[in-house]
C-alpha cells in the first residue's frame, strides 16, 4: 500500500510581487503553501489579522459582522444571488470565522472547479459590494442570533462563553465575538466600511493553500490579495485578566431542567511555550475533549451517570459540541484552563441543585488532586501512548492541516510546525516534567464558575450554606463509590457572599 508522502512547506516569497516586501521579521510568512499533489481537493485559507479584540467600544461585534458581510453578500462583480448560483453546481461555499485575534475565510473545492471558485472567494474579500440590503439581512440574522438563539438554544455553549466573559471582563477579550445586542444594534454600514478599510490591508493578510493545487497558484493567490491597499496595524497589548482571588460564581437564572457548568482561570501558557506538550498530555488525561479517556468523564458520567460528558481544556475550544477535534484558527495570546460539565439533569430522585453542586464538587476535587499530586507513572505512560496516535486525528483533513500551519504562523512556531512535531515532543516528555508543568499551571482555589439554572437564589443559598449535597442513583453502586460520594458531598466550596453574581437570562450579553 502506498503511503502519502506529505511535505509541508511554508514559503516566503521575497521578490516578484507587487507589494514590496517589508513584512516585519516577527511574521513568518505571507504565504502558507502545503502541497499534497495527489489530492483532488484544494483548501484555501485567508487570515486577516483582526478579531473581536479590535472592536471599538460600543460597537462590539463589528469584526464579526464585517467578516459575515464579506462572506455572505454581493461583491462588486456579482449580486449575492448570482454568487449562490455560481457556487451551487460546485457544491461549494466559504466559511468565515472571527475569533478574539483572528479573522479567517476558508473553503475547500474539487480541483475541477478551482478557477471559478477562487474568483468568487477572492472577490468576497478584495471587492465587497457593501450593499445596504445585504447589510440589513446580515445584521438582522445576527440580532436574531444574539436575542434568541444564543440565550435559548444551547445552554452549554452559553455557559462556556459566559466563563470567558467573566474572566476577561474589562479587557479586549471581554466581549463575545458576535457582540452584545445593543452594540450590534448600533453598528451601521459606515462602521463596517471604515473597519474594513482600516484592517483589510495587504500587509495585514496571510494567504494559505493546501492540497492538489497548480504550481503557480499560491503565488497567484498572494498577488491577488495584494490588490488590497497597504496599511499596517499596531499590535494591541495582550489582554491581562484581573487576578482571581477565591471562587467567584456567576449564576444565570433561566427556566431550565438541566444545569450546564463551566469553570476555569487564566493560565500563562501558549502553544509555542516549552511547557505546552507537558500540559497537553496532563490535560488529555484529565479531560480529553469528548472522549471517554477523560478522567472527569469517568468520574461524573461513566461511574455516576450524572450527565453526557465532562472535559477540560488548556486552549480556547469554541463550539466544542459540534466537533471532535480541536477548532483551528482560534489562536490567542491569553488562554484559560477550562472545565466543561455538560448539563446535569435529574437522572435520579433528589434536587437539581444538589446534583449540580455534587458534579461541581467532584470536578473541583479531581482538579485539586491532579494539581497537588500530579499524574501517576502508569497514567503518564498510558496517556503518552494514547496521544501519540490520537493526535494524528487533529490533522485529518487538508483544510485542518492548512489551518494548523496558519496557527503556527500566529504563534511563531517554526517548521515543520505544531502538527508535524507534536508526536516527537510528546514522546520526549518525562513524568517529572509533566508534573512540574502541572504544578506550575493548575490549581483549584482561584477560579470563576458559571451555572445556568432555574431558582438561582436557591443555588446561591446552598453554596453559601456549604451544606452537604448528597445524590442518589437509579441503580446500585459499589460501596467504594458510595463512600467516596460522602466525601465529595461535603467537599468545601469556599465562596464569599459578595462573590456570587446572579444575572437573568434576558440580561445576558444584552449590553457591555
Amino acid at each position, binding site marked *: 500500500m502506498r*503511503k502519502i508522502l506529505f511535505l509541508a512547506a511554508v514559503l516566503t516569497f521575497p521578490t516578484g510581487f507587487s507589494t514590496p516586501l517589508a513584512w516585519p521579521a516577527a511574521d513568518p510568512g505571507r504565504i502558507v503553501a502545503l502541497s499534497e499533489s495527489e489530492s483532488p481537493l484544494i483548501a484555501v485559507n485567508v487570515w486577516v489579522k483582526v478579531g473581536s479584540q479590535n472592536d471599538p467600544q460600543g460597537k462590539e461585534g463589528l469584526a464579526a459582522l464585517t467578516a459575515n458581510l464579506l462572506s455572505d453578500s454581493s461583491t462588486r462583480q456579482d449580486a449575492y444571488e448570482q454568487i*449562490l448560483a455560481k457556487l451551487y453546481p*460546485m*457544491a461549494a461555499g466559504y466559511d468565515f470565522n472571527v475569533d478574539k485575534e483572528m479573522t479567517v475565510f476558508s473553503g475547500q473545492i474539487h480541483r475541477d472547479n478551482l478557477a471559478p471558485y477562487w474568483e468568487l472567494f477572492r472577490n468576497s474579500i478584495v471587492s465587497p459590494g457593501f450593499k445596504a440590503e445585504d447589510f440589513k439581512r446580515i445584521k438582522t*440574522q445576527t440580532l436574531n442570533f444574539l436575542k434568541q438563539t444564543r440565550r*435559548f438554544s444551547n445552554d452549554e455553549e452559553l455557559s462556556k462563553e459566559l466563563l470567558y466573559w467573566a474572566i476577561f471582563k474589562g479587557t479586549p477579550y471581554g466581549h463575545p465575538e458576535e457582540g452584545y445586542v445593543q452594540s450590534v444594534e448600533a453598528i451601521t454600514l459606515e462602521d463596517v466600511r471604515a473597519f474594513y478599510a482600516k484592517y483589510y490591508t495587504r500587509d495585514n493578510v496571510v494567504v494559505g493553500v493546501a492540497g492538489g493545487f497548480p504550481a503557480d497558484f499560491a503565488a497567484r493567490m498572494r498577488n491577488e490579495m495584494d490588490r488590497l491597499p497597504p496599511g499596517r496595524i499596531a499590535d494591541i497589548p495582550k489582554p491581562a485578566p484581573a487576578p482571581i482571588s477565591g471562587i467567584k460564581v456567576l449564576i444565570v437564572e*433561566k*427556566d431550565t431542567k438541566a444545569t450546564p457548568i463551566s469553570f476555569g482561570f487564566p493560565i500563562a501558557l501558549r502553544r509555542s511555550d516549552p511547557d505546552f506538550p507537558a500540559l497537553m498530555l496532563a490535560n488529555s488525561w484529565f479531560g480529553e475533549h469528548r*472522549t471517554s479517556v477523560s478522567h472527569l468523564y469517568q468520574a461524573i458520567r461513566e461511574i455516576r451517570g450524572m450527565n453526557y460528558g465532562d472535559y477540560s481544556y488548556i486552549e480556547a475550544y469554541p463550539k466544542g459540541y459540534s466537533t471532535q477535534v480541536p477548532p483551528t484558527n482560534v489562536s490567542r495570546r491569553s488562554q484559560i484552563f477550562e472545565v466543561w460539565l455538560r448539563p446535569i439533569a435529574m437522572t435520579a430522585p433528589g434536587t437539581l441543585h444538589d446534583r449540580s453542586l455534587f458534579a461541581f464538587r467532584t470536578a473541583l476535587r479531581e482538579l485539586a488532586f491532579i494539581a497537588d499530586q500530579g499524574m501517576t507513572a502508569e497514567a503518564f505512560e498510558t496517556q503518552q501512548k494514547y496521544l501519540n496516535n490520537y493526535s494524528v486525528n487533529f490533522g485529518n483533513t487538508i483544510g485542518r492541516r492548512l489551518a494548523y500551519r496558519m496557527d503556527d504562523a500566529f504563534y511563531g512556531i517554526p517548521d515543520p510546525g505544531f502538527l508535524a512535531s507534536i508526536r516527537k515532543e510528546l514522546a520526549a516528555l518525562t513524568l517529572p516534567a509533566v508534573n512540574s508543568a502541572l504544578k506550575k499551571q493548575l490549581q483549584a482555589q482561584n477560579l470563576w464558575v458559571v451555572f445556568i439554572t432555574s431558582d438561582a437564589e436557591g443555588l446561591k443559598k446552598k453554596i453559601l450554606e456549604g451544606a452537604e449535597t448528597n445524590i442518589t442513583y437509579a441503580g446500585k453502586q459499589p460501596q467504594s463509590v458510595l463512600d467516596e460520594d460522602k466525601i465529595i458531598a461535603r467537599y468545601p466550596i469556599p465562596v464569599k457572599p459578595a462573590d456570587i453574581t446572579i444575572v437573568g437570562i434576558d440580561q445576558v450579553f444584552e449590553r457591555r
Partner: protein
Amino acid sequence: MRIFLSTMVGMILLNVLPVGLAAEGKIFPFDYQLVQLENGFKAYLIRTPANGQISYLTIVRAGAREEWEAGRSGYAHFFEHIMFRGTEKYPNYDAITTRIGAARNASTSLDVTQYYITAASDSLEQIVDLESDRFMNLKYSEAAFRTEAGAILGEFSQGRANPYLYLAEKLQDTAFDEHTYKHLTMGFEKDVRNMPEGYDYSISFRDRYYRPENCVLLLSGDFDRARAEQLIRKYYSPWKRGYVPPQIKPEPPQKAPREATVAFLGRTLPILTVAWKGPAWSATDKLAVAAEVLGRVAFGSNSDIYKRLLVQTQKVQSFSGAFSLNRDPNLLTVMAMVTDEHDLPMIKDEMEKTARRLRSELCDPRSLSETKSAMKYEFLMGLETPLAINFALRDIVVSTGGIEAVEDYYRTLESITAQDVKAAAAKFLMDTGRTTVTLQSAKESNR
C-alpha cells in the same frame, strides 16, 4: 482500479489523475473487496489514501425504526451507549482504545446504529478482536445499565434547549400514525424516563438486531488487504446468526393534509415546516432519485423561493429544503425560520405554490443539470478521510445491505430528466400527503 503515484518534489506538482475509472464511468474512485462470511456478515475492504490510518465502521442496520414495541422508543440509541460497557474478555473497552490511541465513537439515527474507530493501521488486529468480541459477547450488569440510563437522560435534557428538536418531534408524531418513524431517535420522554427498568428488554433488543446478517463492516484506509481478510474471517466467523426482523407496520396512505403547532419553552423566532410523504431511498428507482433532485431544484440554495424569501424580501432568517430519503418512506421536508410571525401564512402559501408549480411545469434544464453537478461534487468532496469515505457509503449500506449500489445510484441520477422531476412532484408533493407544523415560543415562559 485507481493507481496513485505519490510523487512530490518541492513545488513541482504532478497531477496524477485516476486513469481508467473515468473511462469505465464509475464515480467511486477507490478499489474495494467484499468479504462475506457464512454467517451472513459482510465486510468491505476499501483501500484509500490514509497516511497510516484506518477507519473501522460497523453498521448495525437497526435504529429508531426497529423500535416497534410500545413503550420502547429510544432503545437503539440506549443500546449504542451500552455497547461500550465491556465483555468478559475485555471488561474495560475504553482502556484498550485509549492504549492504542484510537478515536472511537458511535451514533444512532432512524435507520442505523454505527460504531466507528479511527486508529493507526498497525492496531488493526486489536481492533478486529475488540470489535468482534463486543458485538458477540457484550456483557453488562443491571447496575451498569441503570447508570447509563442517567447519561441518556442527561443527553435528552441538554437537547431540550433546542427548538428544532421539539419541532422535529411534533412533525414525525403528526405525520405518522403506524410506522415507527412516528418517534425520533432519542425516543419519547416517558420511555426515556422509564429506561432504568428496561434491562431485560435491552438484552432482547441486542439478541434480535446485533446479528451478523444485520451488520456490515466498512474498513477504509491504509491496510494490507489479505491480512485484513484473514483477521475478519478469524474473528467474526464464530458469530451466530439470529436476526429477527422488526414488526414495523406500514404507514397507511395519508388522506388529508395535517397541521399542528408546538409551543417552545424558550424563545425563538417562529419556525415553519412543511413536509410531504416521500418514497424510500433507492439507487435504481427513478422516482425516488428524482425526488431528491426535486428537493434541491424546488427549495435548495439556488431555488427561486430561497432567493426570494431569504435574500430579496428577507422574510425568513433561514431556509432549508433538502429531501433526504430513508430506508422506509419518510418525509420530504422544507423548513424556514420566519422573521415576523404575521408572515407565516404567506410563507406557507409560497411553499405550497412552489410544490404546485413543480407538479404542473417542467423544471429549468439548467437548474436540473446544476443540481446533478452539485450532488456529484458533494459526494466527491466528501471522500477525503477514511472515516468520511465510510460515512459517504453508509446510507447505501443501510438501505441495500452493501455498497455496490453506489454506482447504480449515480447512474440513475445522471439519467434523471425534467419529466422525471415533474413526475416525482406529481406523485409526492400532493396536498393530501402534506403535514405542516409551526413552532412558536410559549409567550409567557422565561419571564
